């Protein structure tokens, strides 16, 4: 089988698998978030936490619950790392430094999974399982909860209630993430992923670190988290031993963001509304895959930073999917990609993580972009824009704009300051344009909660630890608050009847408008910066 054919077969298998689960899984998730019954496990959780699962919240309370939950998540994870020597399975890896512990705590709570630490030498298995794995579950569930709250904003009328955050988050964990992760952790074990509580194994006389990888791997991909239990992430043979485990991992990181478009269509009572979002996501994903694949196949050193068992196509497929979702796991080193290939991965992130984006975050991000697109269309024809039967007035458009602008603001300020700081030069692994790309990629990855890196850059200085943590937090929570505010304001409206003047949002015109908005907003915001980094590299 030639490399190209093998690559196409893998892409075909991936798409076929996603197509098979799309309807049942999307509908299942819709039922999860609309069911009025609580399972036994959920009742125990609500009782222990003393929350009333049958009372609904206004958007402000919903947002405070997200913030409160995330705040204690950061504090708990920080303390866990600082007190690591007191925990079992620590292997004398010691306490994690304050800057690193803070960065890591923010990173995992915000679903970014940016890793400034080397897992094999810094973290023991207890912090990995009791700290990081837990956040892999709950940070993903938070993203899904916020997305569902926004969808309710469209689906509901004349109410100030968006649902109950604790119920939405708990159900996301108990009914969606946990069962799917368990099944696929088992599948990954069968595919050869290791599951060991030891610290290392001796291979031909050399010590190689080992870890309970399978359980973490499944939720790391499924929750679009991306934080590897090993430094090389999904390039490590213990995390990703062969082509099949590789395909399963790519499937896992795409399955929820893709299927949520079906959930959305079901919840708003018109499935075509979901299909049109999926088509925009799919076209941009396929386009970027073509670019990255072609670029990597025509590189100067195409195999640098890639694993032989994957080869170029499966590395490009993984890279495109991990950056198009906000996962950030890698099976090859993006820093060693070509100017165009690495720039393509960066552009995926700069689209704002909505092709198809992270779990939940992808859906709410593209819905916010749809609001912007309809606003632009409304400006063109001089009509108050509507979307899904809701008027998009000043309050809605302002909330959408704040949500969209938060990321570029923190990204460009952060990267701009980093670029002129005297210490930055020494932190880079490559000279010239590619060095600037390393800085840009770092701040793009943090601000968009992706977590992958041009990993040659050394980010352990206080400046990088702190500034990237701030980017991750603002890039996560400013959009979340804005999205919930938008949801609250939409839910309060009555439904506007469709008229002859209503722009239909299920056809190719809307799809083009939406896709164009995604590309244009990213291009207008980032072309000047990209021109000095990856674009210059690609032209050299």
């Amino acid at each position, binding site marked *: 089988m030639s490399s190209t054919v093998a690559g196409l077969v893998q892409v075909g298998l991936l798409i076929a698998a996603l197509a098979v689960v799309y309807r049942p899984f999307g509908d299942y998730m819709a039922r999860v978030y609309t069911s009025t019954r609580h399972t036994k496990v959920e009742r125990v959780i609500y009782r222990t936490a003393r929350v009333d699962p049958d009372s609904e919240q206004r958007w402000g309370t919903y947002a*405070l619950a997200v913030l409160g939950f995330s705040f204690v998540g950061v504090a708990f994870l920080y303390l866990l790392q600082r007190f690591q020597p007191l925990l079992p399975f620590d292997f004398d890896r010691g306490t994690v430094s304050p800057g690193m512990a803070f960065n890591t705590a923010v990173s995992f709570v915000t679903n970014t999974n940016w890793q400034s630490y080397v897992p094999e030498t810094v973290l023991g298995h207890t912090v990995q399982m009791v700290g990081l794995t837990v956040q892999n579950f709950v940070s993903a569930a938070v993203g899904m909860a916020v997305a569902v709250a926004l969808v309710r904003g469209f689906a509901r009328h004349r109410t100030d209630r968006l649902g109950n955050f604790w119920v939405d988050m708990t159900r996301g964990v108990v009914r969606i993430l946990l069962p799917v992760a368990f099944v696929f952790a088992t599948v990954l074990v069968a595919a050869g992923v290791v599951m060991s509580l030891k610290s290392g194994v001796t291979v031909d006389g050399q*010590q190689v670190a080992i870890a309970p990888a399978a359980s973490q791997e499944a939720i790391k991909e499924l929750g679009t988290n991306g934080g590897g239990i090993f430094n090389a992430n999904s*390039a490590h043979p213990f995390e990703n031993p062969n082509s099949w485990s590789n395909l399963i991992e790519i499937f896992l990181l795409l399955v929820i963001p893709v299927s949520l478009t079906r959930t959305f269509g079901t919840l708003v009572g018109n499935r075509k509304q979901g299909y049109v979002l999926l088509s925009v996501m799919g076209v941009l994903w396929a386009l970027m895959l073509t670019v990255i694949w072609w670029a990597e196949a025509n590189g100067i050193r195409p195999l640098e930073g890639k*694993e032989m068992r994957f080869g170029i196509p499966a590395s490009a497929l993984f890279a495109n999917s991990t950056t198009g979702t906000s996962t950030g796991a890698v099976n090859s080193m993006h*820093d*060693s990609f070509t100017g165009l290939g690495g720039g393509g991965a960066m552009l995926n992130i700069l689209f704002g993580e909505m092709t198809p984006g992270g779990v939940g975050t992808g859906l709410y991000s593209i819905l916010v972009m749809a609001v912007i697109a309809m606003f632009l269309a409304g400006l063109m024809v001089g009509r108050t824009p509507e979307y899904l039967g809701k008027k998009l007035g000043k309050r809605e458009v302002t909330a959408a704009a704040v949500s969209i602008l938060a990321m570029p603001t923190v990204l460009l300020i952060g990267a701009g300051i980093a670029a002129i700081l005297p210490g930055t030069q020494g932190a880079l692994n490559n*000279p010239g344009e590619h060095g600037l790309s390393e800085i840009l990629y770092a701040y793009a990855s943090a601000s968009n909660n992706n977590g992958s890196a041009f990993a040659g850059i050394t980010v352990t200085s206080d400046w990088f630890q702190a500034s990237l943590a701030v980017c991750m937090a603002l890039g996560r929570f400013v959009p979340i608050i804005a999205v919930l505010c938008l949801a609250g304001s939409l839910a309060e409206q009555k439904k506007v009847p469709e008229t002859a003047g209503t722009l239909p949002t299920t056809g190719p015109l809307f799809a083009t408008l939406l896709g164009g908005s995604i590309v244009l907003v990213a291009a207008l915001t980032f072309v000047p910066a990209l021109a000095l980094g990856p674009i210059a590299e690609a032209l050299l």
Partner: protein
Amino acid sequence: MTNFLKQASAGLRVLLVLTVITGILYPAAVWTVSRIPGLHANAEAVDTTLVGVDREGDQWFHTRPSAATLPASGGSNKGELNADYDQVVAERRTTIAQREGVSEDRVPQDAVTASASGLDPHVSPAYAELQVPRVARETGLSEQTVRQLVAAATSSGFTETVNVTEINRALEAAR
């Protein structure tokens, strides 16, 4: 502020319960499943051939270059326009060509580039073939025997690769 503290304290309680479920019970359940006989041949990776570490000496097949600092894994993260790294790659090519007694243009890409994990056990069939004459000479085995070992360690699926760790173990056994 009081509402925030109220939510945060509810959050702490929810977090603790979910920590028990997803941070302790879930990995424990997966670990238990991984012990089911027949599901995973080697979950503890005893004498694993999943990873490759280079052995010193001309009697062995060599892996690809590694940028890892064991026991940790990792790649070089060198960009393709990095001129200093061009030098490193050129030196590797010269060394390998001399070691195998061939011209430099016969040294394949994978032989001179570092893998992503630094633990890649695989090389291309071309790089394996390049090493056959030297290994045969140094071990006293016939080239045909060595080629048989290479063939046994070759897997073809979406990619055709040769597992160096496997061949070297077989060489050890053949001695």
